[in-house]
């Protein structure tokens, strides 16, 4: 009996084993090729993407989060709310099982983005940046990160899902963090995933994860995570590299939905650039930033993806007439307000408990235009744990208590320079000098401090001569002679009339060229921004001389200064000059075509035929 039983068991085991083997063989044969191929693609995409993922650990055990490297020399993105408690330096692990030191570069507190730089290599594996405007609802996507700070073995966690929504607007949470135009996903985004990458199915970077809707369900994923779109971050990339604390933008006008469902201007500041461009109360917004605007959220989405100071196309309708304009966006906060807000200790925390601030965005700055009532009610997700419910749900690790800032290691400290208003002034100087040194290769005018005489013509109008002397500027224009006394305030001498201050602008330009940024005054790197009627984005240096602020714009490819904007007052239109037709003048390249614009009008195009320059003085050369 026993033997029979054993035999039966043996036989059946064999049969079962054979059965197991055979169906798996069948499976392999019957799985469509497309499925196997799709699976392989998914494996490869995840493998490739994983190499660029970063797990962030704050020094001193102050939490952490996630990030992603975007350049071979180690520039990486994470959330502001991850970087903030980490301070100026942090540790980052990657899937190569190595731990790297990293230093803060720049922060965008409103957009909840921070740029950090990993140190120690110039061949970091980095993510490929996708065009996130091409992302569609239903697309497969995956997040890689450090949920619950699990990556103590340096290996990040991968969660797969689909895109649940695009162009989502999430109201500011806490006092700052606003998620505009973000990507919504059902891939699990948990505390610790913050700052980590969201990839498309190809493994290309489409966003930075950072927020979720939780409400009464606790601080764990409920299938609703949000990622900051990588296209938004592309707009801010130059600003982040500047080492500054970057602000977001306002139009100087608010919008609301009227009874016909149109998005209309519900309030507008007369001091705004939009007002000067002709926008008025009651106008219907048709498109903004080259997007059709059909909802208030849609308008806010566009507003949220551009940095302060950018010029953005706006199309609006009044009665039956349609108007187009490029409007310059102003800042949401003053620098002091921004500093005060990010230094507020009650800011929602990053690290293991990062994703949702607790306080509602009720304390918008008073100078910020109130952005209208929405057309539909919308909840503000809350993440307070409900302590009344039993049994308690599992809790993620608690956020470490704040303590004294850990000391920056010496080998990291050389990449950090503290200065008020900057996340890391080291990177501002780095970029300022990069731009200036490149420009100086072709246009070295240092020490040419004497009288400059520029001669030329305004086609069809007559000859022009401009003498930029030490004490004054004298100019002959077809419409007459004008002078500027350089010993007086510049902002009251905006000659010639209608130019917005061409002579002052040229004086400031000459001073930067002859003195260099270090001697000129306070010159800092703003970042990159578009320039009217020019393709691409340009490096911007900002300098203040006398009482005027001037933006100098440089082509990142050629290094040439392609223009400047001189603001006699930041609430007024600048005098804009575009430089072109660079030619050699005594061994240095100088522009021979000046296109001058003020407000909505082109003032003139001056074709220069001659530069009369002084001999270089023996002054010490700028560093």
């Amino acid at each position, binding site marked *: 009996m026993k033997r029979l*039983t054993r035999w*039966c*068991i043996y036989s*059946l*085991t064999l*049969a*079962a084993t054979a*059965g*197991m083997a*055979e*169906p798996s063989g*069948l*499976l392999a044969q*019957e*799985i*469509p090729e*497309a*499925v196997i191929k*799709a699976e392989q693609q998914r494996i490869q995409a995840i493998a490739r993407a994983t190499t660029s993922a970063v797990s962030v650990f704050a020094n001193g055990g102050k939490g952490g989060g996630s990030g992603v490297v975007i350049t071979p020399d180690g520039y990486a993105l994470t959330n502001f709310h991850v970087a903030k408690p980490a301070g100026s330096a942090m540790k980052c692990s990657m899937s190569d099982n190595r731990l790297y030191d990293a230093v803060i570069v720049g922060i965008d507190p409103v957009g909840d983005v921070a740029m950090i730089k990993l140190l120690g290599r110039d061949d970091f594996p980095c993510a490929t940046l996708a065009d996130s405007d091409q992302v*569609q*609802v*239903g*697309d*497969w996507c995956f997040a890689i990160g450090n949920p619950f700070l699990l990556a103590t073995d340096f290996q990040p966690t991968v969660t797969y899902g*689909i*895109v*649940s*929504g695009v*162009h*989502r607007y*999430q109201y500011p949470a806490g006092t700052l963090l606003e998620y505009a135009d973000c990507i*919504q996903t*059902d891939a699990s985004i948990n505390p610790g995933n913050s700052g980590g990458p969201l990839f498309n199915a190809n493994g290309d970077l489409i966003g930075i994860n950072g927020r979720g*809707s939780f*409400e*009464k*369900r606790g601080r764990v*994923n*409920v*299938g*609703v995570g949000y990622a900051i779109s990588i296209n938004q971050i592309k707009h801010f990339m130059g600003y982040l590299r500047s080492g500054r604390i970057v602000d977001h933008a306002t139009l100087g006008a608010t919008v609301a*939905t009227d009874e016909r*469902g149109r998005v209309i201007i519900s309030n507008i500041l007369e001091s705004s650039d939009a007002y000067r461009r002709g926008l008025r109360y009651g106008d219907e917004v048709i498109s903004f930033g080259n997007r059709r605007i*059909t*909802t*208030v*959220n*849609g308008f806010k989405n566009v507003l949220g993806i551009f940095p302060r100071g950018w010029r953005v196309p706006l199309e609006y309708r009044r009665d039956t007439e349609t108007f187009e304009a490029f409007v310059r966006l102003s800042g949401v906060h003053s620098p002091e307000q921004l500093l005060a807000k990010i230094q507020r200790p009650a800011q929602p925390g990053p690290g293991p408990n990062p994703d949702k601030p607790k306080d509602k965005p009720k304390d918008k700055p008073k100078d910020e235009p109130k952005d209208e009532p*929405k*057309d*539909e*009610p*919308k*909840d503000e*997700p809350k993440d307070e744990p409900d302590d009344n*419910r*039993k*049994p*308690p*749900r599992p809790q993620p690790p608690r956020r470490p208590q704040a303590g004294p800032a850990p000391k920056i290691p010496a080998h990291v400290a050389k990449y950090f320079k503290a200065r008020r208003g900057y996340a890391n002034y080291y990177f501002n100087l780095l970029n300022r000098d990069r731009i200036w040194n490149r420009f100086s290769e072709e246009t070295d005018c240092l020490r040419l401090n004497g009288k400059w005489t520029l001669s030329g013509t305004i086609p069809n109008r007559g000859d022009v001569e401009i003498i930029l002397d030490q004490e004054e500027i004298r100019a002959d224009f077809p419409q007459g002679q004008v002078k500027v006394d350089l010993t007086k305030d510049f902002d009251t001498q905006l000659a010639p009339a209608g130019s917005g201050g061409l002579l002052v602008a040229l004086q400031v330009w000459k001073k930067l060229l002859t003195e260099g940024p270090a001697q000129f005054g306070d010159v800092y790197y703003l970042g990159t921004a578009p320039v009217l009627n020019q393709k691409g984005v340009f490096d911007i240096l900002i300098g203040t001389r006398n009482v005027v602020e001037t933006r100098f714009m440089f082509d990142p490819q050629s290094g040439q200064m392609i223009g400047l904007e001189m603001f006699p007052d930041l609430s007024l239109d600048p005098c804009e000059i575009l430089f072109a037709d660079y030619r050699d003048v005594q061994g240095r390249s100088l522009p021979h075509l000046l296109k001058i614009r003020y407000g909505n009008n082109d003032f003139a195009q001056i074709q220069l035929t001659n530069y009369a320059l002084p001999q270089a003085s023996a002054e010490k050369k700028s560093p």
Partner: protein
Amino acid sequence: MFQLNHYTTKRSLACLLGTALLLLAAKPSLSYDQGTSFSAVSSSVQSKMVKIYGAGGIKGLEAYQSGFLISEQGHILTVWSYVLDTDYITAVLDDGRKFQAKLVGADPRLEIAVLQVETDRVDFFAPKAAIDLEAGDRVLAFSNLYGVATGDEPTSVLHGIVSAKTPLDARRGAFKTTYRGPVLILDAMTNNPGAAGGALTNREGKLVGILGKELRNALTNTWLNYAIPMSELNQAIDDILAGKTRPRSVDDSVKRPDHPHSLHKLGILLVPDLLTKTPPFVDRVRSNSAAAKKGLKADDLILFVNDRMAESCKTLKDELSLIDRIDSVHLIIQRGQELLELELKLSDGT
């Protein structure tokens, strides 16, 4: 000892045999539709989705939910909830068109309601064409969870699979709901605030069911993600569309009896009628009245009178005025999360 071994051996044999047969019989049948991407499916479904706004807005009670179009006459299927306790229900279609929706009818047992908007330019799901799914099937869930979408913004889409098809274990101490039928348990986080009334489809965008209201298991503090299959709802939808639940009092031509019922005669005192649509909560029941004899209690909410919706104190009074005193009054009431049915006869009271 032997008995135990013998039993164990028999059980082992049975298990092995079963396993072997299962494995040998299993013919893997995988299919992979290369032509249908989720993004294409999403686009096709979105035009049928509706964002619904109504009562609520105070802490913990969202003033919004989801729904989807079920007829070219603009009928919208959604869940029956406090959001609909208002005369101003707003329905926003996928293209951003905004309507004031009318409550056509509801079935509190199934917790569904049908609204209607005055338009004929709509894409819609045909409820009768809904399909059934089994455990393991892939699904997409469309809803306006957390009210994320507004205007013409598309609703949210989550993906997952059917984990199980099972009767809902709804009872006191577990999931508090009046629905007692089968549900599809989902492995995705589909039933978030505002998601109720959303559409569950298969991977090709064919309607499967409606996302139910939020349910939290009081014992385990877990939230249930589920949908009610359309096959459970179609009869009720037909009844609602046929006007069977519509109050008769809205029709002026209905003949009124000479001696109708009244709240007073039945022994029912409602809460003060202060709102435009005050829910007919019982404030007090007179002792020894017909209502008291049948067990009606203070705080009960009267939902239906003779299978007609009593959506407000006024409607309830009007409906009673259409019933002759010699006839009984059939009430469906809600007490807590329970639905109860009472048959009141005037002769029962004193």
